[in-house]
């Protein structure tokens, strides 16, 4: 007789999934099964181990630099899911949208007040045991029409920035605002795509952290939704703001 095909085709769907021959519906069914059943997930991983060495036959191919620039633009706006270790912290004031919404109104005045509060207040309470030096900086990104488009607050200690829209100007369809850090006398560094309708949380990497300071400025340019294809601003700069704070 032939190979016992008819007796166990159901066992093969994990192999077929990894090989890539299933249609969209059948793939989705296997993926649901993997999520629900550890045995299914194990079987898929086993077939990955069996079949993926075939990928060694594929010739490497260098992607153009613009792909990396776009990726950086995209991950700038990553609203990272809370990781188990800092869920409690993220539910604190930093994540309180009311704080940021009220911050967005009358941005400049409030920004100044907040800096004073944030910078001076911890210092006033020197008696607090071993409180780490908190370094916050802020910037009101003012547009060419004189209106504040966004406010950015940088929490240096925790390497993060929140960018809150105030009155951002409307952009043409298919265009999106991208935030840049411009260290004095240097080329702009992509910070990430920002939202015009909601606060954007951005993780700050070392390259950005070391360059944020009163000598640097923030700017917003108009770019394709996936970010500047070149890693440098390609569209008009619609807003700029100096950085204040300690």
């Amino acid at each position, binding site marked *: 007789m032939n190979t016992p*095909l008819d007796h166990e085709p159901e066992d093969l769907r994990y192999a077929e999934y990894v090989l*890539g021959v299933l249609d969209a519906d059948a793939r989705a069914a296997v993926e649901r099964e993997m999520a629900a059943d550890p045995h299914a997930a*194990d079987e898929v991983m086993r077939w990955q181990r069996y*079949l993926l*060495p075939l990928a060694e036959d*594929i010739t490497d191919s260098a992607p153009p630099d613009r792909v990396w620039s776009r990726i950086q633009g995209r991950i700038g706006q990553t609203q990272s899911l809370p990781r188990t270790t800092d869920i409690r912290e993220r539910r604190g004031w930093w994540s309180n949208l009311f704080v940021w919404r009220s911050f967005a109104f009358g941005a400049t005045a409030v920004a100044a007040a907040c800096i004073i509060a944030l910078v001076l207040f911890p210092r006033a309470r020197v008696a607090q045991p071993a409180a780490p030096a908190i370094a916050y900086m802020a910037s009101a990104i003012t547009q060419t029409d004189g209106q504040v488009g966004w406010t950015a607050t940088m929490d240096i200690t925790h390497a993060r920035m929140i960018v809150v829209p105030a009155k951002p100007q409307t952009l043409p369809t298919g265009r999106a605002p991208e935030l840049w850090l411009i260290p004095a006398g240097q080329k702009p560094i992509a910070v990430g795509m920002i939202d015009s309708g909601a606060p954007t949380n951005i993780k700050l990497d070392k390259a950005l952290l070391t360059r944020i300071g009163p000598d640097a400025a923030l700017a917003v340019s108009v770019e394709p939704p*996936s970010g500047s294809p070149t890693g440098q601003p390609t569209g008009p700069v619609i807003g700029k703001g100096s950085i204040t704070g300690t």
Partner: protein
Amino acid sequence: MIARMTPESSDRALALARELQAVADGDRSAFATLYKRTSNKLFGVCMQMLGDRGEAEDALQEVYVSVWRSADTFDATRAAAMTWLITLARNQCIDRLRRHREVPLEDATATRLVDPDPEPPALTETSEERRRLERCLGVLADQQKDAVRAAFFSGATYNQLADHVGVPLATMKSWIRRSLIRLRACLERSETNP
């Protein structure tokens, strides 16, 4: 189940796994290093499956954005880092192929299927896993081996493969399923008795 690694590749594999774990912690410089080390391979995979430079660039971008976002789901005790990354890339490409080209194979893909390149590399340059797979592929009839390779490298569905080769759907399914059953038996044996 511990991911198997060959001695010659284990240093690189461990370095990649460490980088992925750092990426999970939000380390951007580890992410940049990971991209430098792996993007040529993953872009090769996307080019191979999509056959279109622009689409391969878009796919690669999506792959690394999801690496950044979901690196914390990578489990070094269950899979090798490169296997995890290539799987992300293949899934991204297959999803794109299903979305855009469910019905006929486009000419570019069809051409690649006729001669299911790439050629198997000189086996001295490959990993122990790749050599083991080649030995097991060697027990299949040429036609069946070609069907498995064509399926893997094109990401085409059973229907598309059958249409392309000009055999009934049932025949294509039977070739590939028989191949998978024989491969499983052979690979299981060699995993237990390497």
